[in-house]
């Protein structure tokens, strides 16, 4: 530690540059991680808010809510308890004069079932008839107010906003909650179609019909259109950044060590154990990475404070802490490459003259 700190202090410019690199890398990783989390959250926030363990879909729907339809006939033998609810989903375009068009997810609910009952509003009340809707607060940010009317798809009658709810996002679109009747209207379907899905808070709930199939919430989420692809894209980006930071740290420390080999040879000739010199290099890597991380964290915090709400970023402290830990480990691994050089340094090389 003594040698590590003394050297950093003496070579301020050189080490500031390395720290600056680490700041940029860690900032980029933090922001990307937050974006990845934010986008993932926007895919699933509504599902998360329902707190469901199971979902039952038509078995031909390829685990896709918008491809699934459940008929009266299919549901004939199935009894719903207090922990089950029907869900009718349809993608809609919301428009109203004075507002830009918005793509949204319409979710039709039965007022007496748990999803509708547990729906938490930030203002207003729940729908009492088929022309009333509760919408995500994203609409509020767009200037909609309680009592405003909007047109959904090409339905002839308009819908009135009677309530707002937070974190209602599905497949990165804001959710509009309404009634199952409204859902049928928007889908242009008759009363033989009951819903798109049954959701349940009971992890043992099974559908008895041979044409239906149940899935765990995780299976369902993994099959949300684009969700897994998006997540693996981010995971790869973050992994590559980690590898890049490993290379940057390893290369810098390697070059610095090469420049110091003559000194190390002298110190080895004086009988200073290789352990001390290896310790200096590794603790130097740790000091550099931690300083870089601290500044990177500061930048991330500033970003979190000023970023507009419309950018989907979620700053999850435990996950970011895990990422930071990963970077510290990366730094230590990077420092292990030059260690080989130190162990092989030949004290004789400096005595000659």
């Amino acid at each position, binding site marked *: 530690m*003594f*040698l590590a700190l*003394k*050297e950093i*202090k*003496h*070579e301020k410019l050189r080490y500031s540059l390395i720290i600056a690199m680490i700041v940029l890398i860690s900032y980029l990783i933090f922001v990307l991680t937050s974006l990845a989390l934010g986008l993932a959250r926007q895919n699933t926030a509504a599902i998360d808010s329902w707190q469901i363990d199971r979902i039952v879909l038509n078995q031909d729907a390829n685990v896709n809510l918008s491809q699934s339809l459940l008929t009266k006939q299919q549901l004939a033998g199935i009894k719903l308890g207090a922990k089950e609810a029907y869900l009718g989903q349809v993608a809609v375009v919301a428009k109203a004069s004075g507002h830009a068009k918005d793509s949204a997810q319409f979710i039709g609910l039965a007022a007496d079932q748990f999803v509708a009952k547990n729906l938490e509003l930030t203002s207003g009340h729940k729908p009492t008839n088929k022309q009333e809707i509760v919408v995500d607060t994203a609409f509020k940010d767009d200037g909609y107010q309680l009592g405003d009317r909007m047109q959904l798809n090409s339905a002839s009658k308009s819908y009135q906003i009677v309530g707002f709810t937070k974190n209602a996002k599905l497949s990165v679109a804001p959710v509009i909650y309404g009634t199952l009747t409204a859902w049928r209207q928007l889908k242009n379907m008759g009363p033989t179609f009951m819903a798109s899905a049954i959701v349940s808070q009971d992890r043992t709930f099974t559908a008895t019909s041979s044409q239906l199939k149940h899935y765990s919430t995780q299976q369902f989420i993994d099959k949300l259109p684009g969700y897994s692809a998006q997540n693996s894209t981010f995971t790869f980006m973050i992994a590559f950044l980690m590898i890049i930071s490993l290379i940057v740290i390893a290369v810098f420390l390697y070059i610095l060590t090469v420049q110091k080999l*003559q*000194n190390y*040879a*002298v*110190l*080895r*000739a*004086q*009988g*200073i*154990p*290789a352990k*001390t010199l290896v310790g200096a290099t590794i603790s130097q890597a740790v000091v550099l990475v931690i300083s870089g991380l601290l500044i990177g964290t500061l930048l991330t915090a500033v970003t979190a404070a000023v970023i507009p709400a419309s950018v989907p970023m979620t700053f999850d402290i435990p996950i970011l802490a895990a990422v930071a830990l990963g970077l510290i480990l990366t730094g230590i691994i990077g420092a292990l490459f030059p260690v080989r050089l130190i162990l092989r340094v030949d*004290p*004789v090389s*400096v*005595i*000659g*003259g």
Partner: protein
Amino acid sequence: MSAIQLTNINKFFGEKSSRVHVLHDINFAAEAGQLSLVIGPSGSGKSTFLTIAGGLQTPNSGSVQLDQQPLYDLNTKQRDSLRLNKIGFILQAYNLVPYLTVREQFGLADRVKKHGNLTPAELENLLKQLDITELQHKYPAELSGGQKQRVAIARALYTDPAIILADEPTAALDSARVKEVGRLLADLAQSQNKAIVVVTHDLRLRDYADQIYEILDGQISKTV
């Protein structure tokens, strides 16, 4: 019983046709309380001789005894610790850590060798003798060649080693300084019973030596 004893040392460099015989059957002993001088021209094998005596490189044949211990029977770690505790090297070039001040060079020694180093008063005295008291807060890059050399001498003496091996310790010094360093080394040998070996081509050091050897083309002989 000698502090350092080299017996029938041979050292070759290179392979096959380019093989050079650098040290021929060297027999050498340095006694505690004496300053032994090994004088020879450039390329005669002085540095090779000194590094073998100090346990830094292995001879092809022969043995080195340090305080009765066969040096090359020890493992690397044991040799490190022997160097740290018993040997002070004074090297001609690059012997100071560039990012430590003069003062901190001694601090580093304190960290790796916790006991038996010079007391602050003794260090003060040594620095005064070498006329480098004023330089304590400077970095090596801020020192002249001669100042660096004197700091390196102080650094080697700081751990109070029983054996001091010096390679051209006076190369960068003017005559007045050579006298001082010669006197200091001779005095250390005598008053503290150290075994001091100096290899050099600097004939000015002859006056301070107890034993003088000559090395020529890898052959060593005692002069009288």
